[in-house]
């Protein structure tokens, strides 16, 4: 337990450094939120007045100190673009991104691990070659392009799936966790479940495709590597069934590498969500980040990037836990 606390405390200076860096970069970067907010009619006097009202005319270090001193009291300020407290905005959007990330991870794992393991066990077979070719295509497709193609075919041409959003208009959902799929299951709301699944399918596939491709290749090479180990030969020699050899000795040991890659790739999944959410107008924090950066909404951007940093940290922590669970020899 005290190791966990030590890890959590260790994150504080890192997050502080990140927050300062973002603050500095955002303010040094060219671009002005006030001229964007006021539009075409604003005079320089109007711009100066609003800058003063928003405190943007103060020196950067003073602004950062204001931000920090408020942040420790839990007040992260208001968004310039939306006029609402930034924490409220993030709270509204975070569950959507988490749901999308989990769905993409689910898509990636359910496709990639079985295909990867099977390709390794039957390597150089037709299935192996086909699997690896598809994986190569998957990793090569930019996800914005894949998203638009899916929208074109499954939305525009076939009308099977909705082109944007998270749930169909008119369907009420009782929020428990904020993850609509879980909430609709918990409340037994089948209509909502169908609508949410239909809205989630294309974005999850778009986001999960590249990850699936990477994991397929990693699973295959990892299993191949393990298959050459002496303990696998020993397991076979002592007369274990092939099934037991594969599942208890090969796959379990290969999982360490796969989990590491999944953990590392979750970061890519988050950055991928920025593009995917924009293409599908999916109301998550990725979409919000694009809007806040375009509007130079300093406070909102700051908190969103910090969120991403925290997520990386948490995922890394989880991966470490998973290691010791998969392989008890590894101590957390």
């Amino acid at each position, binding site marked *: 337990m005290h190791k966990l606390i030590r890890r959590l405390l260790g994150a504080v200076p890192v997050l502080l450094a990140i927050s300062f860096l973002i603050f500095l970069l955002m303010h040094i970067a060219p671009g002005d939120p006030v001229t*964007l907010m006021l*539009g075409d009619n604003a005079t*320089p006097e109007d711009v100066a007045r609003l800058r003063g009202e928003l405190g943007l005319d103060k020196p950067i270090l003073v602004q950062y100190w204001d931000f920090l001193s408020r942040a420790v009291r839990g007040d992260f300020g208001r968004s310039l673009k939306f*006029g609402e407290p930034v924490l409220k*905005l993030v709270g509204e959007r975070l569950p959507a991104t988490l749901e999308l990330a989990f769905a993409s991870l689910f898509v990636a794992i359910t496709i990639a691990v079985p295909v990867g393991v099977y390709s390794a066990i039957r390597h150089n077979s037709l299935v192996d070659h086909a699997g690896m070719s598809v994986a190569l295509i998957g990793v090569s497709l930019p996800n914005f392009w894949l998203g638009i193609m899916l929208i074109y075919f499954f939305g525009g*041409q076939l009308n099977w799936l909705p082109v944007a*959003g998270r749930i169909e208009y008119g369907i009420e959902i009782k929020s428990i966790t904020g993850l609509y799929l879980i909430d609709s299951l918990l409340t037994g709301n089948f209509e909502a479940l169908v609508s949410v699944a239909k809205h989630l399918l294309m974005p999850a596939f778009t986001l999960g495709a590249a990850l699936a491709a990477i994991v397929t290749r990693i699973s295959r090479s990892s299993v191949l590597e393990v298959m050459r180990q002496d303990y696998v030969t020993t397991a076979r020699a002592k007369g274990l069934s092939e099934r037991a050899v594969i599942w208890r000795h090969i796959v379990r040991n290969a999982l360490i590498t796969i989990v590491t890659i999944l953990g590392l790739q979750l970061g890519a999944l988050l950055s991928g969500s920025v593009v995917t959410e924009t293409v599908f107008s999916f109301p998550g924090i990725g979409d919000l980040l694009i809007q806040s950066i375009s509007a130079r909404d300093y406070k909102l951007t700051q908190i969103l990037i910090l969120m991403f940093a925290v997520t990386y940290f948490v995922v890394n922590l989880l991966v470490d836990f998973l290691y010791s669970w998969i392989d008890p020899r590894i101590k957390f």
Partner: protein
Amino acid sequence: MKPKPLDLDRRKFLKFGALAGVGALAQGALPGSSWSASRERLTILSSVALDNLHPYAYSSGPQYGIWYNMTEPLVDVDFAKRGYFGVLAESWEFQGKKWIFKLRKNVRFHDGSPFTAADVIYSFNRVKNDKQSLQKENFRDLVEMQALDDHTIAFVTEAPNAVFLDRLENRFIISKNATEAQGGEPGEHKPVGTGPYRFVSWQREGNLVMTRHDNYWGKKAAVKEIVIRRVREDAARVAGLLAGQGDVINNVPVEELSRFDKHAKVKAETVEGQRMYFLAMNVTHKPFDNKLVRQAINYAVDPATIIKHIYEGNGYVMNGPMGSKVIGYDPKIKRYPVDVKKGKELLDKAGFPNGLEVKLYFSPDRYPKAKEVCQVIADQLAKIGVKVELVSQEFAVFWGKEWVNGGKSPFYYVGRPATDADTVYDQYYRSGVSPRIQYKNPEFDKLIDEEQRTGDAKKRIALLHQAGRILMEDVPFVPLYTLAEIYGTARNVAWSARPDEKILAGTMAIR
């Protein structure tokens, strides 16, 4: 009675989840339920949505359009006649520093309360003083408002202001009583206006739902319920319309138009837009301080070619500083003809016999096909010996105080919407107002001063024409074009689009 605990163990959860998942996918494999426009409900897929529910914390055309469905202004623009008509105002009179408005009687807000001068004063005070208002600059010279009776109101300005009607466009009136009664944060109040639609619900980045206001003072809307959904991606809006998931979409890219022509259920709706595109030349930078150089550039640029090849014909060449829908447009002004020889001669006369090199700044994320347009312009300018280097900037950078709004962009491609020529003349070309062009001409300033003070509409237009002719002689810009605003609609939707990016559902009919 004690609520029954959720009887769901892990096994049941997984079983139900798996079954439901398969069901959801199976249903997904069936043709989707399209909801084509009906008198019951119409869905608009819009590239823009409301950022919040604050009645004045926005300043963009499409957002004004969304609000206009629920809340109304005193006056609106008659684009065909290039003038104004009363919405919540019946008539008005300009008396020096005073504007007197007679308000429409028998108008009721959505909550049933009557519309009076007190609501106008409340609303405009919010516009002027609310911390979050982004429309304050429209009332910067409004010093007093007096309710002369329930349906007469006087606005007093610092100096006579003939263009006050322009400032009133998009200044929407909300109910004083209904808003104050809601308490809490001003940005979270449900809008209560007088418009043809009543507010029902809104989710940020989700749906805005409005229902017909059955006691509307004007013509009752044809469709009962309007749903506006934000769909940012152009391809997704088009796909949504083609699939029947939406009935009206905005900002259709020109290359998609041919698909609409062939489609049995959708059509395109186009109208000349209000945004005027031009090349701005900041006259404090060399070589744009030289009038001959500016004229030479005008002789070289041919917007008709750009419209034909880049916008597939969906544009309208501007003959002068204003587009044809703008109040103050002068049909007698003609643009500089394309004349390469003349352009070269002028450059020679200006002291650049071997041509010159300039940078052209543009923002590809703001204006459609800006990069392609600027490439063509560079090619056209090369013919008179002006070598152009293109500089692409993100809009937040382009428009910021480091560049255009700091007076640091010498030559740039920009688009500006306007209802009245005064707003552009005053802002871009009057001495000392904005650093965007920094043009100074006392004669021009005098005309604008006079135009802004005259109560005689005809005289004011004549003064704007005169000012326009001065600009065409000095040309601190190259007029280019206005573009078509392109919408897609289901074929059974009868609707005429407005030039100002507003989608007014109350003007739609279902065939």
